[in-house]
């Protein structure tokens, strides 16, 4: 390395590639980087902030010119940003914000707002007072916390949430947990799942017992879920446009590297696919 021209390397630290959402985000970023002639270095923290901290260190070692950080956890990312800043590498936060430290720019769509959007849609479809189920993500994960918060903002006091159970963002568990909940609640009208994987598992479980009228709303708008919405098996899913987030992040980074100014907050609009 040394003192030659700033490298054309951009670091992208992803929280987890075990989730198709972030796989799509990564692919959006990769496509954009290729188009602009930059090299993208991607790391995968498998949702472990400690691992991510190490990966940020590794990216600093590699002297990337800018880091796109998709934090596993907004609070835990603070020290990573501080470290990168100290090494004179700017950070752009992607999809999740960073609490307690300043980043160059924040590119995301808001999980809490998405939760509200899903909750309002569900309320509109099943009517006030109906019994509904919430399938939660991995306990303690930030998407679980934020989407749950938004959902409850929208429906508390208006819908009767008879069961809130965790299915770990997993289709397989979504299926089993839904199956079990059905045993005790045959009269539910709707389901909100914190992601599409669990929503699709729930759809399978509901279809298996013939409860095809139950409204299922997911989150993420993965290909599978969009197809299910088209086929009428799911009612809606909140689209965060991961590919767009990824490509906008790279775009913003390149603008900054070329000396343009970038705004501190770039919202990516949410959309309800129904």
């Amino acid at each position, binding site marked *: 390395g040394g003192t030659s021209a700033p490298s054309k390397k951009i670091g992208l630290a992803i929280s987890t590639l075990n989730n198709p959402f972030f*796989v799509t985000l990564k692919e959006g970023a990769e496509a954009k980087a290729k188009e602009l002639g930059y090299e993208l270095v991607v790391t995968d923290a498998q949702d472990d902030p400690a691992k991510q901290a190490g990966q940020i260190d590794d990216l600093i070692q590699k002297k990337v010119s800018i880091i796109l950080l998709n934090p596993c956890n907004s609070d835990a990312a603070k020290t990573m940003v501080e470290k990168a800043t100290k090494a004179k590498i700017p950070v752009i936060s992607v999809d999740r914000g960073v609490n307690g430290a300043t980043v160059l720019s924040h590119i995301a769509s808001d999980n809490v707002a998405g939760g509200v959007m899903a909750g309002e849609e569900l309320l509109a479809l099943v009517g006030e007072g109906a019994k509904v189920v919430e399938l939660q993500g991995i306990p303690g994960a930030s998407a679980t916390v934020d989407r749950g918060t938004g959902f409850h903002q929208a429906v508390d006091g208006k819908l009767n949430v008879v069961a809130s*159970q965790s299915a770990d963002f997993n289709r397989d568990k979504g299926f089993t947990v839904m*199956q079990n909940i059905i*045993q*005790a609640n045959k009269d539910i009208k709707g389901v909100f799942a914190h992601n599409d994987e669990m929503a699709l598992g729930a759809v399978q479980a509901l279809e298996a017992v013939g409860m095809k009228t139950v409204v299922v709303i997911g989150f993420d708008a993965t290909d599978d879920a969009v197809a299910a919405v088209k086929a009428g098996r799911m009612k809606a899913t909140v689209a965060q446009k991961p590919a767009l987030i990824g490509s906008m992040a790279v775009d913003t980074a390149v603008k900054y590297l070329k000396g343009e100014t970038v705004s501190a907050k770039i919202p990516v609009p949410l959309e309800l696919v129904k």
Partner: protein
Amino acid sequence: MKQFHFTIPQQYSSLIGLLLLGLLLSILSPHFLTISNLMNILNQVSLNGLVAVGMTFVILSGGIDLSVGSVLALSGALVATLLKSGISDVVSIVIAVILGSLFGLLNGVFISFFNLQPFIVSMAFMTMFRGATFVFTQGRPITGLGDSGMFVAVGRGEIVGVPWSGIILLISFIATAFILNKTVYGKGIYAIGGNAEAARLSGLPVKRLRASVYAISGFFAALASIILTSRLDSAQPLAGQGYELDAIAAVVLGGTSLSGGRGYMVGTIIGAFIIGILNNGLNLLEVSSFYQQIVKGAVILLAVLLDRRK
């Protein structure tokens, strides 16, 4: 005949745990003791049950197999791909199950013929197979598997209300219990788990026996993957994560010793049902997911305490 006389009392204690748990849930939830819920449990237990059946062979032989969850994911991805490419369901299933057994056997070859520790070898393959699944699926579910009869039936079908998956589990259980108790092969597994050196000096093919149990474990992981893939109508790259722990827990709850040579297939099935019923009950009782883990851990600890024998 006489032998059963000796084995039943040893299973007694874990059976008591199961019955106590069932009784408790019947009292706490009116939804627990219904035909539909029991079939539901049978259906849910089938996955962990099948993996645990294979794991029982491995543990009896004195080994451990952490790769089952990844073998499950990889076989699931394979069967899904085969189905999508238009190959008939029976052929796809057979190929996937054979490949799954071979993946398992890879563990066995390294453990047995290179004499390495099972924990670390199967952990390395757990990582490798998971990576292979990601590469193979590009990190995305494989969906749109079509409606070919046999494949759909395996995970979603029923016969007079009993899920196919449950029937597969029961057949597997009876067949393997028979193999372990009544065949030379089964006794050989116990022998190498009990004292590998004595087994070698008694002329048993220790290396081949040891390698074979991992193939069996892979076989059952692949079988479970077919049911799971059918049930979700899609293959998931993350499928089966953490299944190894659930399967080991089922085996150990059933009274089988992790040091090998001691245990029974009956116990494993009881263990798998304890875990399955526990998960079902926690959902039925709507225990908050934060507290679920505390309860689950405590019940497992209680069950092994009940099962304790000198």
